[in-house]
Structures are given as C-alpha cells and as structure tokens.
C-alpha cells in the first residue's frame, strides 16, 4: 500500500472539506477500500476516516425508513423496522459477505463497493475501469461473473452489492453532502452504466459523502423479498440475484418493483418486466413473460450465457413465493 495521510474527523463539514481535495478518499468500514489499496487498484494520497460522524442510525418515520450512511450492515439487517417493513433489505444484507464484514461495513460504503471483476482487481491486467483506455480483457476472456445487461465495448463488469439491488427495488433515495451542499439522488439515477467511461460508476462528485439513504414506505416494500443464487452455499457474491417488491390485490399485481444483481453493469431495475406484470395476475405465464422482457436485450458473452436462463428461473421462484 502506498503511504497516505490519515485524518479522523468528527464534523461532517470538515469531512467534506477535507474529502474535496483531489486524491482523498473517505474510509468507513474499509472492507472494500483497503483491499483495493492493497491490490494497487486505487492509490489515494489521503484517507478521511468518517467513522466519528454521527451517522450510524436507523429510524422509522411516517414516510419511511432513514438509514444513516455509517449504519453497519449487521445493525440494519437486525433492525425490527427493517425486518417488518422492508424485509428485502434485511434479506439482501444477510445474504452479503460474512458476519465479520457485516459488523464492519457501512451502508454508504456498501453502495459504493467496486466490482469483483478479476481483471479490474489485478493491476497486472489491462482494465478500462481501472486504467481508462487500456482495454477490457473480460469481453473476450473469463466472463462468467460478468454482466449480460448494460455492458459496453469498454466494460461488462457487474456491480457486486446485494444491498444496492434491494434499494433499487425500493426506490430509495441517496442523500449526499459535499462542498456544494446536500443533494438527494434517486437510486435509479445514482449508478451509471459504463458506456465509454467505465471508470465513472456513479454521480458522486469528489468529496461528496453518503450521509443517509431514505426508503419510502410503500405497500410493495412490506411484501418484498430477495433471492440470491451462488456457486457455494454462502459467503459469495451473487451469480444472479433478484429483489422483488409487490403489492397485490388478490392475485392481481397493483404495483411491482424488480431489481437484479449479477446480470447488469449496475444494480439492474427492469421496468420492462414490471410493466408486463402490472395489472395482471401472478400466473406462471405472466411471470415467464416478465422474465423474457427482462432479458430481451441481454448480450451474453462466452461464459455467462446461462445467466439469461438462470435469472428468469430466479425471478419465477421469487414471484411464486410472493403470491
């Protein structure tokens, strides 16, 4: 790891002031950042430790749930309000990482974790996300863990966060604070597809800090679930995952949100699949049609074609369970 400066802060204003300097990174849990630094993927000059900020809370309000950016994964997963009103969040968190990492990692940091693409994490390989313009070996190389949706000629890496998938299904809003003040960013607008600039993964500006995530209270949220498929029993990133939130009138879908992990370059919302379901009964047929709508534009590579099939099966499993 490169030598870097380190400052622990107590005051949000100071955090964003220090964080605004180029070459500075915030550190909260550190569970992803330190790995990236050890592997030479990122080499910040200075870390600003934000763990002293008073942002590790979870509160339920009339309009929904507010989760501080420094709340730990474990605390959120075990919070009674979360489990009752937004079960998909608890399920996604408990399906993530290991108990130790869930004790350490923050909600804000979780949303900002970087892809597990082996080429991205190997500083001896080219990678457009790590070194813009150097090329993408995954497209013609080992692509089993890669995206079938939202990719470009520059990058097909998936976003690894389970939590982000659940947040997308819940229409969460990310609250950030930077030197220019505070912003509210709907999570659907937070992540950016790679296009020609895969190194730009989200709309955060230098020095902006995730202070909270707001999750609206909806009928769908109460009836929400997460399903994660992987190659070993647990402690692994998703091969594919599905977050679904459904509001039913008898068997008819009043409204629905569907988001997916492991298949997209961002936590993947599928308005097309939702549209198929909205106003329809949750029958095997409509579910299958929703699955087909989800993957209509899928562009599988050499090793990940199975995901096109598997994610439809995962969707069917989850929706059948929500009937």
């Amino acid at each position, binding site marked *: 790891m490169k030598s*870097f400066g380190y400052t622990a802060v107590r005051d949000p204003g100071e955090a964003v002031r220090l964080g605004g300097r180029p070459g500075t990174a915030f550190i909260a849990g*550190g569970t992803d950042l*330190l790995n990236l630094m*050890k592997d030479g993927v990122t080499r910040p000059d200075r870390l600003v430790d934000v763990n002293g900020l008073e942002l590790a809370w979870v509160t339920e309000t009339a309009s929904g749930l507010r989760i501080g950016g420094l709340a730990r994964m474990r605390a959120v997963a075990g919070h009674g309000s979360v489990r009752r009103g937004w079960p998909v969040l608890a399920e996604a968190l408990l399906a993530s*990482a290991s*108990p130790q*990492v869930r004790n350490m990692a923050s909600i804000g940091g979780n949303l900002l974790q970087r892809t597990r693409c082996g080429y991205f994490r190997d500083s001896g390989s080219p990678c457009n996300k790590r070194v813009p313009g150097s090329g993408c070996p995954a497209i013609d190389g080992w692509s089993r863990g890669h995206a079938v949706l939202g990719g470009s000629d520059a990058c097909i890496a998936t976003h690894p966060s389970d939590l982000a998938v659940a947040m997308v299904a819940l229409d969460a809003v990310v609250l950030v604070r930077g030197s220019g003040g505070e912003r509210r960013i709907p999570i659907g607008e937070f992540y950016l597809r790679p296009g020609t600039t895969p190194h730009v993964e989200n709309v955060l500006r230098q020095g902006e800090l995730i202070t909270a995530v707001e999750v609206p209270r909806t009928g769908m949220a109460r009836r929400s679930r997460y399903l994660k498929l992987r190659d070993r029993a647990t*402690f692994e990133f998703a091969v594919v995952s599905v977050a679904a939130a459904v509001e039913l009138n008898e068997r008819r879908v009043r409204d629905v949100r569907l988001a997916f992990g492991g298949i997209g370059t961002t936590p993947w919302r599928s308005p097309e699949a939702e549209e198929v379901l909205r106003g329809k009964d949750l029958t095997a047929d409509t579910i299958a049609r929703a699955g087909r709508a989800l993957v209509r534009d899928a562009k599988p590579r050499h090793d990940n074609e199975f995901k096109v099939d598997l994610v439809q099966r995962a969707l069917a499993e989850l929706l059948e369970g929500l009937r």
Partner: protein
Amino acid sequence: MAESTGAARPTRRTVLKTAAVTAGGAALAPRTAVAAGAGEVAAGPGETAVVTLSVNGKRRAVEVEPRVTLLDALRERLGLTGTKKGCDRGECGACTVLVDGERVKSCLTLAVMRQGSEITTIEGLAQGERLHPVQEAFIRHDAFQCGGCTSGQIMSAVACIDEGHAGSDQEIREWMSGNLCRCACYQNIVAAVADAAKGARS
C-alpha cells in the same frame, strides 16, 4: 512539525505523541505524528502515529504508519502472533478478532482507525490456565487440524454464540461460514460451537 490538520481543535487529552522512528539499517527521515483530539488520530503520508489500544485488557501503545492494518499491528508490532494472516483480503477469516466485543476481520481495518478500542485476540480468551469454554469445546470435538484457521474460528465462535446465532446446527453452519477451514473439519466446528453454546445458555 507536520501539518496540523487534525490538531486544529482543542485537545482535552493528548493521546498521541510526537514520534521519530529510526529503524536499524535503514535511513529513515524522522517522522512526526500529529496530536489530535481525544480518540482521534491524524498523520501525514509517511508519518507514524501512536495508537493506544486496549488489547486483552492491557493498554498497549503502538506506533504505526496509517497504512498498517490492525492485523499487522498485532502480529508485527505487538508480538501477538496467535492471530493469523491467511489471505489479507477478508476472504478467509483467520484474522478474526473481537473489537469492542464484535467479531471483525483484522486485515480489513487500519490500526489508526481503532484508537481507544478494546481488542480481544486468541491470546486473551483463557483466564490464566483456565481455557475459555469455546477453546475447551474445540479440543473436545477435535474442531481443528492444522490450526491455521483455528484462532479465527474460535474468536468467530465466541461472537457467534454471543450474538445468539448458535441456536441450531443449521444456524451455526451459516454464521460460521465467514471462516474457512481448509482441513475442512467443519462438522466438528459446528459440534464444538453447539456444545459451547449449550454451556453458555445453561
């Protein structure tokens, strides 16, 4: 003196001291840490800071660059080699310790981030000659072979029981899965955790 970013605010108690390091054989520029507020640390690139930790109930000061992980502070600076480094990436669990009572992977946190924390390592579990019930259960159930993962397994197990995640074998299997055992005596680990949990409940 180094820049005083972190020292701008008044300090009630100075927990850091100026430190100059010269290591044998190497020509090192003198480095300076910055005094900061209680519980806070600041250091510029290449500087060291003195971090005070409570390790196994003893107050220990350790002088480190910010880039030193808690794991390497324990192993390389404090001589507490019971905590093992298996992957240094949070993927194996061998370095699990308790920080303020919670299990964490000590390779994924910096020592400077743990100023003032209570750290419990494998060396701190036994009371003198008397082993911790989880340590006893690990011996009784042959829950280790080579021992490479064992410190981490045991620290994780202590927390797993404390968290209330040892209610059934199924639950233990899931909540102990952050600790790899390449010798793969997983069934015996589950039995040991279940046994120790039973003792903890009664």
